[in-house]
């Protein structure tokens, strides 16, 4: 804790003070130490101790999983943090470090990582390494060996993870293993020919076996490190049988052979074992595919169509949302900006209520009111007509704009009221003396002044609506669904809701394609940002 005499508090425009003498520096340090107090020092040490303890734990875990790169990063960051907080200098860093760490990991890194994922085939069927793909392929094609001996088994549990305690009927030795861990020989307690308990594991009682039947029958414990040796499975939790995969993996050649049909699947560089006729064994594994996702998004006809209309609608939605809310808000601000009017406060509070309600709730309530068969609009206002508010491509867009107008106009009303009231009355009076009519005063004096202060907010409102996921998802879920598209996309989807649906809904999750779409949004947002900063010059004001 030291006073930063080399980095003094100074307002812009003041001349730089002369550098402090050593004496001044020492005085400052003494003063600082006197002011800090024992409690502050103890608190600082405790906090740093906690951080370091967590870091040591993290490093140990990472090292046991052989994540050397991440381990290195954690060590480096921890060292840096300690250096910053024990140093007498580095005062700005002391204040910036906590926020910057979160910012770098969860905002900057994930943006970069998105770019990387956009270049891969990551998704359903391609979400692991090649080794994982091999073992999961072998596990999924297991068939019981016809002359398999019957292995007495006991189902055991360790911290929620199921394992099998297997007795070899020929040798009488006991082995234990899980779906991840191949069988290993252990010393076990026997009940007759059957190993029934082993240290470190809890043996499941009959009732537990019944409760977890599904888990147990799905459990396949690899026989050895070699995947071609097959696995032990138990249909009843009592007796196990040897199962061998119908696929045979040749590690040297990198091929999978289906022993029942004789078809050879080889690694052709597309992230899955592929036969000569093009058929693939899934799951495959994750590889970098370069710009394939982008090329696919733009050139595949069934994907390009949705991308075009989704992009157009995203722009239309954002622009129309800003325009409608702004004009309604401005109109109301003008209407209620009259001192002669009574009850303005009451109107104001009632009007901003929509803004005070969490928007996801409002959108869900509106979705109920717009319901085709039971909703308030059709049943009460339109006398039972079945107007497809949320299921017709055009009406759904109208409904979304109406709801977003409801959600957004109070904000614009507040902003415009503030901006109008900050325009000096003298300008208006001067114009009136010069004979300007009210419309001319508004059009040529008030509106330009208002736009100066409101324009940056309109731009950020546009950027916000460009990614306004909630209203789309809660109101229409992007529907009506476009049945021609191979991805789950609908006529009211905007880009961000399309990203979400491609990545997290439907039968196949395509993280690569979703990230490619995200990058398209990045580019658009970046262009908006550049235009916005050019116009507002806000960056130049920073000093």
């Amino acid at each position: 804790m030291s006073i930063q005499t080399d980095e003094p508090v100074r307002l812009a425009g003041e001349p730089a003070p002369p550098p402090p003498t050593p004496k001044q520096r020492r005085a400052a340090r003494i003063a600082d130490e006197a002011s800090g107090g024992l409690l502050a020092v103890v608190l600082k040490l405790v906090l740093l101790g906690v951080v370091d303890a967590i870091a040591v734990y993290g490093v140990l875990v990472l090292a046991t999983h052989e994540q050397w790169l991440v381990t290195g990063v954690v060590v480096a960051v921890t060292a840096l943090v300690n250096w910053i907080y024990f140093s007498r200098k580095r005062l700005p860093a002391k204040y910036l470090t906590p926020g910057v760490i979160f910012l770098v990991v969860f905002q900057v890194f994930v943006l970069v990582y998105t770019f990387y994922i956009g270049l891969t085939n990551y998704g359903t069927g391609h979400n692991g390494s090649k080794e994982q793909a091999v073992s999961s392929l072998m596990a999924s094609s297991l068939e019981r060996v016809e002359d398999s001996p019957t292995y007495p088994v006991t189902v055991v549990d360790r911290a929620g993870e199921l394992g099998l305690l297997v007795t070899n009927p020929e040798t009488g030795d006991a082995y234990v293993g899980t779906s991840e861990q191949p069988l290993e020989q252990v010393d076990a307690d026997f009940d007759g020919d059957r190993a029934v308990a082993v240290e470190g594991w809890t043996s499941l009682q009959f009732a537990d076996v019944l409760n977890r039947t599904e888990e147990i029958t799905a459990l396949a414990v690899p026989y050895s490190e070699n995947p071609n040796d097959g696995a032990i499975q138990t249909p009843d939790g009592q007796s196990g049988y040897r199962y061998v995969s119908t696929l045979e993996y040749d590690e040297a050649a990198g091929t999978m052979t289906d022993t029942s049909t004789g078809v050879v699947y080889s690694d052709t560089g597309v992230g899955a074992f592929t036969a000569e006729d093009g058929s693939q064994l899934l799951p495959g594994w994750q590889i970098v595919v370069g710009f394939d996702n982008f090329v696919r998004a733009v050139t595949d006809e069934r994907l390009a169509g949705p991308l075009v209309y989704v992009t157009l609608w995203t722009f239309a939605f954002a622009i129309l949302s800003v325009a409608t809310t702004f004009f309604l808000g401005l109109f109301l601000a003008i209407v209620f900006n009259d001192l002669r009017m009574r009850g303005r406060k009451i109107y104001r509070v009632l009007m901003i209520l929509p803004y005070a309600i969490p928007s996801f709730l409002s959108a869900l309530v509106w979705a109920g009111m717009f319901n085709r068969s039971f909703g308030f609009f059709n049943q009460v206002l339109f006398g039972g007509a079945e107007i497809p508010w949320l299921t017709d491509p055009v009406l759904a867009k109208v409904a979304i704009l109406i709801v977003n107008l409801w959600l957004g106009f109070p904000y614009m009303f507040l902003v415009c009221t503030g901006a109008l009231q900050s325009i000096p009355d003298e300008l208006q009076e001067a114009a009136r003396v010069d004979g300007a009519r009210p419309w001319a005063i508004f059009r040529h004096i008030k509106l330009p002044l208002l736009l100066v202060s409101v324009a940056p907010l309109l731009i950020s409102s546009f950027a916000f609506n460009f990614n306004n996921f909630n209203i789309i998802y809660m109101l229409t879920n992007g529907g009506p669904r476009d049945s021609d598209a191979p991805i789950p996309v609908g006529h009211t989807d905007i880009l961000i809701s399309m990203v979400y649906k491609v990545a997290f809904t439907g039968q196949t999750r395509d993280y690569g394609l979703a990230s490619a779409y995200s990058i398209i949004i990045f580019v658009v947002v970046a262009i908006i940002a550049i235009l916005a900063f050019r116009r507002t010059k806000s960056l130049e004001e920073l000093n």
Partner: protein
Amino acid sequence: MAAQTPVPGTATGLTEGEIRVFEDASAPRRTDAERIAEIPTKRPFRFGKWFAATGWRHAVGIVVVVFSLFPIVFVVSSSLNPNGTLMGSNALFSQLGLDAYARILNDPQVPFLTWFGNTLLIAGVTAVCTVFLGALAAYSFSRMRFAGRRFGLISIVVIQMFPQLLAVVAIFLLMSSIGDLFPAIGLNTHLGLIMVYLGGALGVNTYLMYGFFNTVPASIDEAAKIDGAGHARIFFTIILRLVAPILAVVALLSFISTVNEFVVASVLLVDTEQQTLAVGLTKLVSNPRYADWSAFSAGAVMAALPVMALFLFLQKYIVGGLTAGAVK
């Protein structure tokens, strides 16, 4: 009665009738009593004139209030409707009862109170930590001059243009690999979600706070420094108190946006018991088999109340913060 028209040029709003009274100087002097008797005790009310001046504004106001209150009235009415369907909710306030509230609170399939608690916990912790991290950064940007300061400020302004939800896929994959090694902060944990939200803490709020910190005169810091206070003491005991209003605004905006956040929360929180209100209630009504609209409405009313109360209570401050750049 043209005499009631305000005469242009008379700032005090003299009417023509009054001016004529003053112009009529040649008239014989009257007693005060006579004059008082002549002054009309009440102006006659003329609807047309009133409507042209302020009446139409009330008409607009009523239309807008109906528009803005209608969905709120609808949801309150259906939450009070004891027997549940969406269809039955259309007859507003036809039946009154609190059965729907009891149903949503007691339904074993719908852990509403757990969701509520999760939401308050996640949004509350996120808000407090966001304010703290943002205030630390804003203090250093506002009070210290160092290499990379301008770059840092510009980066923060630029980064805030890219909301975290754009990177939702990467966040999901990152958290699932973190969860493989550290289950306590990985997928399906509140701590993990809060950490992700804190990634956005600097981007959105620092600039807002930075502006406000700049309005606190630096001479206060200097006076404290002369009295022997260190930088930490100045920050925690002096500056933080002086900027309390902006801290409240940022905390509230952060709280509201976390309550509203759906994308990241729905991806990271898998188990029903772990979810927030936004995720839980949305999944609830999007389930076609769930037909209890009244119970949902009751849940919505209860979920909206704390946020609405906070918002209206701190309205004055929020409006100031809003115009400084935050958008809902």
